[in-house]
């Protein structure tokens, strides 16, 4: 019998909830959220999440990027298709940027 791990369950539950309540993507429940880096842009540039949410950034450019929020979190250098995840355990506004291309900025609003 297949063992159901916590992650599978969480993802399934997230799907069900999203389908049932039809929440906009930026107002999701406390499941994982994704930010993509495409063409030197964080997408979505602003994300509203609940405390406890894990956000994963994936670099889809041919150039390395980083994800840095001063004093809060700092990824290693993300080469193409590399991913960085951070779980937000405190409410607040988290401005972040790419330390290699500082014109790239984003915001995570945790409530």
């Amino acid at each position, binding site marked *: 019998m297949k063992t159901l791990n916590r992650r599978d369950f969480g993802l399934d539950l997230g799907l069900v909830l999203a389908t049932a309540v039809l929440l906009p993507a930026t107002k999701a429940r406390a499941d994982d959220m994704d930010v993509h880096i495409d*063409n*030197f*842009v964080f997408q979505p540039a602003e994300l509203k999440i609940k405390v406890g949410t894990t956000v994963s950034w994936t670099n889809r*450019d*041919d*150039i*390395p990027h980083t994800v*840095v929020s*001063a004093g809060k979190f700092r990824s*290693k*250098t993300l*080469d*193409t298709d590399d991913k960085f995840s951070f779980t937000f355990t405190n409410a607040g506004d988290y*401005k*972040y*940027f790419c*330390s*290699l*291309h*500082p*014109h790239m*900025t984003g915001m995570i609003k945790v409530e």
Partner: protein
Amino acid sequence: MSGHDHGDDGVSRRKVLECMTWAGTGVLWTITGGVPRSLGIIDSAQAATAAAPGMTFLQISDSHVGFDKPANPNALGTLEEAVNKINAMPAKPSFMIHTGDITHLSKAAEFDNAERIISQTKLDVHYVPGEHDFLDEEVKLYRERYGRGTKGQGWYAFDAGGVHFIGLVNVVDLKAGGLGNLGAEQLAWLADDLRGKSKSTPIVLFAHIPLWTVYPEWGWGTEDGGRALEQVKGFGSVTVLNGHIHQVMQKVEGSVTFHTARSTAFPQPAPGSAPSPGPMKVEDAKLRGMLGVASINFKQNEQRLAIIDTPLQG
């Protein structure tokens, strides 16, 4: 590149153009009477170099060793082509500057490969780092190799041929929403370095990111670059050499000439002409022309450089 014979006789125009598009990158600078003049891309400069009195030096940039994406699956190979071009020059330059992004990901093997190829020029090379050279966790690989005798994050000055050269670092401690950054410590060092220098001393400033604002929307500029340029204002001849944007751009303001070099690895789009400044994939047949010496670029460059020459004495 070896085996590509540029014979003296019987070289048709077509053959010359083929050779010119073959590879090559790097801008040759010559200093006559203390004023640097760019002679254009290596091939075109060869004849002039042979005859030109004074000191010559070479600039290469953005070799991105380790880059293997579609825009150029073999960045090490095109660096080697550039080095072969340099080695084929009839008159050796005095030395070379490399304006950063030696490697793509700051891996030890990338630095080693770059060194193995570039050292084949048997030239002294003066480096400044690009942001791609400071990516290792401890930020030590570049400094171990090229940081000896430098100050702060790796800035330094030296004199050659009567010219004062200043290598600056503008890829550290970048601020969110901002551009390249020199920082207060480096600017103070620069002021100190220039203090007491005769205003007739020709100055060459070189750094990775353009010290002038090329296109802030893509981060192509240096936040406090203007503060460095203020300090060289009184000097009769100032030449600012940068990389980072993987294309040739030039501007003259009073006695200051700004110039950016091509990459040896991959081209980037003209400002605003693409969704992002990322590597630009061109047809294979066009790549080497974008890196160096397509005949049209060659002619354009020569014209531009001729324009730039004139105000240096101003």
